[in-house]
């Protein structure tokens, strides 16, 4: 266990430079922004000279780059950057929309796990049969289907044709909040009607977002399971007289090591898919907020959102690495 602790400390230490790197890239993105957004924010071509000047001063647009960097990073950290479009602190706007995006990604992730894992195992156990071929084709179609296309296709079926799902707004949150993710909170606090409402609103977008991941995971589970089962230690287990099911358990645990990594990556690409999914299903999450921000040249918001996405992504990777170390004793060194 001492090894595990040491590993955790070391891994957390490498987390810091990555975070600094993220802020640097975000800053570079901000720095490329042409100098005239001030005019746009001040109200377009008709904007008065003073208003523009005031905005330039407020957002430090005339300062040297290190000052701008510090202004931006400290502003994001202390939530003191005001969105020129909504006149709210940027982080405030984002934190309102964060639960929607997070909930969407979680539901998609659950879909991936529930469908991808069993499909992968079945196709490994039935390798080189028609089951295997179907899973393989399903995986390839999954990664090839544009999210927006699948989204509208499913909308056409479930909304236009049969009215099974609903597109308006987002259901209320349960009164007591634990994780600030309504669907989890309502389940934990026993508000099943709210849970149902959220599920009814989110299952279709979640499925759409997770569609690509299911096949990818299934293929990956299949391959790593087959790889694990061809290991020498599996033969030795059989030679020891260990029953089949227990042999499979060993193989599965060994296969889990790479699977955990892929699941982490999957979560990252799920996050990437949220802007499109939210746009298709009119969900008021961070993704659709980012798209609105782009349409209005609302650069502080774009930057803040990029930053938040990166933080979630990097944190996910951190969790994956920790899980990895918990499963595989070799990693702790």
């Amino acid at each position: 266990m001492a090894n595990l602790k040491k590993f955790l400390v070391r891994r957390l230490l490498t987390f810091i430079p990555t975070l600094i790197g993220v802020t640097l890239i975000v800053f570079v993105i901000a720095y490329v922004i042409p100098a005239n957004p001030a005019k746009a924010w001040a109200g377009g071509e008709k904007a008065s000279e003073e208003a523009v000047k005031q905005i330039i001063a407020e957002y430090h647009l005339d300062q040297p780059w290190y000052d701008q960097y510090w202004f931006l990073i400290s502003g994001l950290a202390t939530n003191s950057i005001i969105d020129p479009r909504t006149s709210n602190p940027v982080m405030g706007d984002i934190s309102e929309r964060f639960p929607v995006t997070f909930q969407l990604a979680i539901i998609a992730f659950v879909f991936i796990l529930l469908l991808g894992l069993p499909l992968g195992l079945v196709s490994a156990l039935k390798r080189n049969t028609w089951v295997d071929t179907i899973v393989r084709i399903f995986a390839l179609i999954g990664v090839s289907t544009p999210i927006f296309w699948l989204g509208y296709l499913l909308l056409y079926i479930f909304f236009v044709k049969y009215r099974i799902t609903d597109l308006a707004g987002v259901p209320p949150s349960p009164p007591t909040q634990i994780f600030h993710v309504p669907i989890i909170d309502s389940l934990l606090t026993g508000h099943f009607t709210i849970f149902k409402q959220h599920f009814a609103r989110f299952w279709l977008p979640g499925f759409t977002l997770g569609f690509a991941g299911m096949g990818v995971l299934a293929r990956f589970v299949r391959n790593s399971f087959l790889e694990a089962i061809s290991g020498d230690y599996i033969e030795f287990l059989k030679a020891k007289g260990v029953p089949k099911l227990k042999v499979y358990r060993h193989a599965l645990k060994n296969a889990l090591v790479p699977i955990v990594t892929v699941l982490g990556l999957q979560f990252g690409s799920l996050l990437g898919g949220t802007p499109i999914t939210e746009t298709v299903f009119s969900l008021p999450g961070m993704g659709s907020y980012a798209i609105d921000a782009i349409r209005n040249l609302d650069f502080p918001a774009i930057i803040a959102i990029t930053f938040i996405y990166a933080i979630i992504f990097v944190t996910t990777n951190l969790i994956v690495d920790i899980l990895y170390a918990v499963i595989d004793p070799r990693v702790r060194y």
Partner: protein
Amino acid sequence: MSEPILEVRNLTVHFYTYAGIVKAIEDVSFDVYKGETFALVGETGCGKSVTSRALTQLIESPGRIVRGSVIYHSDKGSVDLLKLNEEEIREIRGSEIAYIFQDPHSSLDPLYTVGYQIAEGMEVHGRVKSIKEGIQKAVDILRSVLIPDPESRVKNYPHELSGGMKQRVVIGTGIANSPKILIADEPTTALDVTVQAQILELIDDLRKKYNATVILITHNLGVVAETADRVAVMYAGKIAEIGSVEQIFKNPLHPYTKGLLKAVPNPMTKVERLDAIPGTVPNLITPPGGCRFHPRCPFAMEICKKKVPELKEIEDGHFVACHLY
């Protein structure tokens, strides 16, 4: 001679691969006697490992046991191991007949402690009631395979042990259920030379202690001379010669055995120089007709190309498959 514990007859295993059917072993027959160390010798790829695994049906697709029988005489009577179903043979593997594989680095599951893996072998055969009890017993087993400080080693993961230590753990797993037969497939090949002798000695001590029979598979004639009672020489999937260590080393009959002994320093007689056997090991998809050794044999005759030689007993307990005799 004492009574046989294993009678192998006409054991044949084919591998159905992309390139064609590999006739890995064909009509292999031999007896193993109670309490002895029986060595299977031959070059890499001659089918000795396949033979040892086929004894308990440990052949995976694309391989298949085509025919043959392996009669096992246990205390409870005699059975043909190849006729048992999956569950019956599983009960024999690891409890009556145990294996030690070549590479200790990959024989152990990297994700479990060594104690767990020894305990698991006992638990699945009902020798202990739980893994927990098994891990306690594993301490004694680790001690018996001469691992220092077994109380703490039992909690180690495989990657925390050296190669020699791992092989001791593998051996410990093998003897945990005090099996009647221990099949050691090149147990020292992957280890440092300094450790090899210790491991062989350990196996021999354990054999005496548990009154077990050892089948030793190796390509190392030195090892054979030192540890084995009887030897079977294999060539290209067939048995070339069987006899006691004395008979094989002092009076080799088969031209292949003679060549083999000339190619390595013979531990029993002094040789002036080493000679290589001309030619290469045949491809087992389309093996040479007749005697499989004839293309490389200095004494090859017409009949060798046509007729497969049978194993003939030349002197007491000394068999050879060659048309010269």
